[in-house]
């Protein structure tokens, strides 16, 4: 199937890696040719990231060999690997938001010096401009990186990876934070890289992307190599079957929902610099999708409803009555739950046990006179774990030990434990494997069918359209349109989100976001 390993750019043979008692990667082979885009897919916890961290020297393998151009190598650090032309763009970008773009590009690289040893800032900026220019990005390299959009930060990370004359670039979930338009630009960059002979390892949960961009696909499951095939040999169904080890129900089944009365209404909700004049209605037994590009203000609106960052003006009406929600605590007491987009920093207390995470929002009900009723707490956790099929660890183990999908189920369990009537989901399936994704979609469907009012924010349009009865589209802090039923197509939503279509009302057509 492949050329002999000796002519390969990068080749991994029989890699084993375990952490404590958990085997993360168990005897996996993987190779990459010049100019090839090789996708690595599998559910969360399948060992994709671990395998690639071995390749770039972040982890050292317990067993197995890493070869570059047929020569065995033993990287002790990512720095060693970079010196050999192998760079990784990790899932969680390791950047410095307070430093300038140019400084970020120079981290860990030789910096141009002036005669007396000071840094030559002009040369540094010039180099940075050239590096970004090669990727088709023109921006102020002296600005702090933190001011950039997620997509541009991603491009900066790619530019940095390539700056060391990288011949192999590993991208771990590069599109997780990107909108579709930004994803397109990333693909253009990848195509360009491969035409220059650079090998790209592409790790992603988004299978359509994989099919578009990859030359070959390798599937991992539970740390084992399942199959490597050229892309044309596979189709989506087959790939999903290989990933989960079982065939998967096609579409998210949509239960019969009977739309009820209004549970929550926003009237002219405004927070300066974040969103303005938001009018939305959440009805019982209905899923409202909230679509838009990254930075359009969707998360901010949801967090205003949840009291994280309250609005400056406008009204939130619960059952027709204006209420003031100044903290998450207050929102929860009023029956609103929010599943945040940042799972690890906002959703979970990682060192806490799974049980303590599930019960954290419900302790008032689980305690008497301030003392926690441990049995009631255990029972709640066990019920939730069964209901949502939380797999992978005992309930007494730290939540940090779970895979992404199971961690998300813990966050969902915590939110549902209070039996809220209004549920706000922010990117509920981001970074979650295919199996868990379907389970979460079914859960959301069932919650709506049971008469809850549900809001779903998602950057995956297909998901929003599959789940939602209505889709509101935001752009630049405003709701620019609402689509229902057959009106709601990917094309129309994208047109509204990017401003390439005239919104419903009289608003002037604005420039598309860069």
């Amino acid at each position: 199937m492949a050329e002999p390993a000796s002519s390969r750019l990068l080749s991994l043979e029989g890699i084993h890696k375990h952490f404590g008692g958990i085997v993360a990667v168990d005897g996996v082979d993987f190779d990459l040719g010049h100019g090839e885009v090789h996708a690595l897919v599998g559910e969360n916890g399948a060992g994709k990231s671990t395998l690639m961290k071995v390749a770039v020297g972040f982890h050292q393998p317990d067993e197995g060999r890493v070869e570059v151009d047929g020569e065995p190598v033993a990287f002790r650090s990512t720095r060693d690997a970079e010196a050999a032309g192998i760079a990784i763009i990790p899932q969680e970008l390791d950047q410095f938001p307070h430093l300038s773009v140019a400084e970020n590009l120079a981290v860990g690289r030789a910096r141009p010096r002036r005669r007396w040893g000071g840094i030559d800032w002009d040369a540094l900026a010039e180099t940075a401009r050239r590096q970004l220019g090669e990727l088709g990005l023109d921006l102020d390299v002296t600005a702090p990186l933190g001011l950039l959009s997620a997509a541009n930060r991603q491009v900066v990370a790619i530019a940095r990876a390539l700056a060391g004359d990288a011949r192999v670039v590993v991208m771990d979930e590069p599109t997780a934070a990107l909108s579709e338009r930004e994803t397109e630009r990333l693909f253009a960059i990848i195509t360009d890289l491969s035409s220059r002979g650079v090998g790209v390892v592409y790790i992603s949960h988004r299978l359509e992307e994989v099919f578009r961009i990859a030359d070959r696909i390798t599937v991992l499951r539970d740390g084992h190599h399942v199959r490597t095939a050229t892309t044309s040999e596979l189709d989506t169904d087959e790939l999903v079957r290989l990933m989960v080890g079982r065939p998967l129900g096609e579409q998210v089944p949509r239960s019969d929902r009977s739309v009820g009365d209004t549970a929550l209404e926003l009237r002219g909700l405004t927070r300066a610099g974040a969103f303005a004049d938001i009018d939305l209605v959440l009805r019982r037994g209905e899923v409202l999708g909230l679509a838009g590009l990254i930075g359009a203000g969707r998360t901010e609106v949801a967090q205003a409803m949840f009291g994280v960052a309250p609005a400056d003006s406008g009204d939130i009406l619960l059952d027709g009555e204006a209420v003031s929600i100044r903290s998450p605590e207050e929102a929860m007491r009023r029956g609103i739950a929010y599943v945040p987009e940042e799972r690890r920093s906002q959703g979970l207390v990682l060192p806490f046990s799974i049980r303590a995470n599930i019960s954290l929002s419900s302790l008032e009900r689980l305690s008497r006179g301030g003392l926690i009723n441990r049995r009631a707490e255990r029972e709640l956790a066990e019920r939730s774990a069964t209901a949502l099929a939380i797999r992978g660890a005992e309930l007494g183990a730290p939540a940090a030990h779970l895979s992404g999908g199971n961690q998300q189920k813990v966050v969902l369990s915590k939110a549902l434990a209070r039996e809220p009537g209004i549920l706000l989901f922010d990117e509920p399936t981001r970074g979650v494997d295919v199996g868990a994704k379907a389970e979460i979609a079914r859960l959301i469907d069932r919650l709506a069918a049971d008469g809850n009012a549900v809001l779903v924010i998602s950057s995956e349009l297909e998901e929003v359209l599959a789940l939602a009865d209505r889709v509101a589209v935001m752009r630049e802090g405003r709701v620019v349109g609402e689509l229902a039923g057959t009106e709601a197509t990917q094309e129309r939503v994208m047109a509204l989100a990017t401003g390439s279509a005239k919104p419903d009302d009289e608003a002037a057509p604005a420039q598309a976001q860069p």
Partner: protein
Amino acid sequence: MTRERLLGREAVLLGVLVVVMLGMSLLSDQFLTLGNLLRTSRFFVEIGLIALGMTLVIITAGIDLSVGSALALVSVTIGFSYAAGAPLALAILLGLLVGLAGGCFNGVMVTRLDLHPLVVTLGTFALFRGLAFGVSDADAVSTYPEWFAYFGQFYLGPVPGQLFVFIAAITAVWLLLARTRFGRYVYAIGANEEAARFSGVPVRRVKVTIYTITGALVALAAVIYTSRVSSARADFGQGLELDVIAAVVLGGASIRGGVGTIPGTVLGVLTIAVLRNGLQLAGVATTWQLFLLGVLLIAAVFVNEFFRRRDA
């Protein structure tokens, strides 16, 4: 939630305590006598009481540098309001209120103004002590009614009375931290304040309460201290925060937050008490005691980091 790991730490600390005690008994034959140990305990109940509050503060990734100054302020409040003619009971009540208010002030500054506790309590560190000096004009009040001696000089048989107060306080704070909703919130805030807030934990209220509890424990310690030395002065408790923080960190609490227990802190207090007393009996100068305390503190941080990495 992290019981096995903490047992590991506490076992290590218990071992250290035993070794230090054996070492001290070699240095001085008076050390390992019941009489000496009980007498010693009188001097460390104050540090111990404050360390209980400090444990809560440090678990939330905070710090309180003002405890020594607050102790002096409470002492001066009691002594000088009594000297000014207030009945002693009222003077004591006033002192307790001042301690409570001081702690509450720290908590409010930390939460409402979103300032780092290090900065806030460095400010009140100077503020409280300065107020004590101002009010007392650097003078002392040293005559009290006989009954005031009960708080710091009373013995039940060979056992000093304040030991009972300490044991009661240990039990109360241990229950609070290990068994209650409030205690769970304390750990959640320390481990991930943002996630705690998103989960509906009343972060500000919990923090203000923690600093207020610490203030109350400082006030209690100040009453015992003032009674024990039968004097109220503005220069009391200088450097006290060092002993307190050292005991808590020695007890396994992490300055990064999220980790720490009351049994650990109690062991830490005992270790420091034994070390100080033993060195005293062995004739080591106070100045060198401080040096050794520094060594111990740094060693404790090393051990904590070792455990943190092992568990990570």
